């Protein structure tokens, strides 16, 4: 081995050694940079966190899949319309469809207007019948208004 080395480098001068050193340094730098890139990419993705997320998402998906699928929001509106008629309150659909509720489900915005007592009863009845969020509430001279968002699927 030593002889081979001497045979190869025996006739070398400074310039040969310099070139050899430069090439070795460049090759080393290339290897180091490539390797660092690989490890950096891996270190940015924490596999343990990814695995935990997968498990958590799986559990959530299973739980959600067991829940009943919501009827389309159009049908939900039909329910509350019927309730409003039953209690004699005015139900109107707002132009701002889906502005009140900020979530993944589809929603229709509307408001109920009427006598205070009827409005309160209607609101409870509606919320017990269909998923619905209540927003602005206004009462004056025994006349009340509640803005609402009815939830459903698309």
């Amino acid at each position: 081995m030593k002889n081979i080395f001497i045979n190869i480098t025996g006739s070398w001068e400074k310039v040969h050694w310099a070139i050899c050193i430069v090439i070795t340094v460049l090759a080393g730098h290339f290897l180091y940079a490539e390797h660092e890139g690989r490890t950096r990419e891996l270190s940015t993705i924490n596999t343990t966190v990814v695995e935990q997320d997968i498990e958590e998402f799986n559990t959530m998906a299973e739980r959600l899949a067991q829940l009943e699928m919501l009827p389309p929001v159009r049908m939900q509106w039909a329910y509350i319309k019927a309730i409003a008629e039953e209690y004699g309150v005015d139900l109107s659909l707002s132009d701002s469809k889906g502005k009140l509720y900020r979530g993944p489900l589809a929603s229709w915005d509307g408001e109920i207007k009427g006598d205070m007592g009827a409005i309160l009863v209607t609101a409870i009845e509606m919320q017990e019948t269909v998923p619905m969020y209540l927003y602005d509430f206004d009462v004056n001279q025994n006349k009340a208004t509640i803005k609402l968002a009815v939830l459903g699927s698309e």
Partner: protein
Amino acid sequence: MENNFYDCLSRPIRIQDKGVILIPDLVGPVPLSEQHQFVELASSTNTSPSIHVKESDIEEMREMYPGTPVYGMWNTLITSGLISLRKNLQVIPLSDDDGCYIHCDLGRIEFSGDYEAGFFAADASFNLQDADVLHPEYEQLVLPQNEAKMAVELQKERRNKIRTAWSHLLTVVVLIISVSAGANFGLNAIYDIEHKEVREKTVLLDRLRDGLDELRMTRLTEVPSSKTAIDKIAVLWSVTPLLETDGPQSFQNRRMTFKADGEVGNLSDQIDWLKVKYIPEGGWYLSFLVVD
């Protein structure tokens, strides 16, 4: 061995079972006027200056004895270890008063030359009486590494050496690049397995997230209820039918505030969850937490 070592110069002799020719050479500086006639035989070392030989001498020997390698006399004697570095003056006599000499000083060979009629032209202080006479024997002789070569041959040799050096360098460079490329490829292959695993998990996670988003769009995860707040409003309304909202109120706020006329009195005594504030102009502010 002949009585006189000079007799074995410039003719074939056998040294170490090899037929060779020894010719006179010159240790030390070559006179400026003769430099073009000499070629280097051996480079300088820490014990000896460079040794040169006349190119015409080599040429002559080549013509007379083709194929026989030519070596320098002093070069051979130095290589054989027959020159003592401690002796100031060592001579090889040609006759009683003529011959050649080599001068050493402070453990290093300084120069060689010829003396004639006992006179040393290089240094008049040299004296034959003080000189040691060398009597080398054939069996004592060891051939130097390099035989004497013509300038053209030396040039060719040098060119070959340069070419060899560059070709060796090219081989080494190719080897270095191949090894690093190979190492990089190997590391890539190893890390690819890990990357693939991570990629697969990330894809699975993305798919799950998409699926989950889709489920969330059709499933109700939280049932909205404002019953508590409505019940509280109903209680207030039952005791004060002329209830009014104080500015914009929302079921999504933390607290709702109403205004009631002064006749109702301080309701906080009757309703523990109610916060009451008297309005000097008349009436009461009634507020409560939407969610308990």
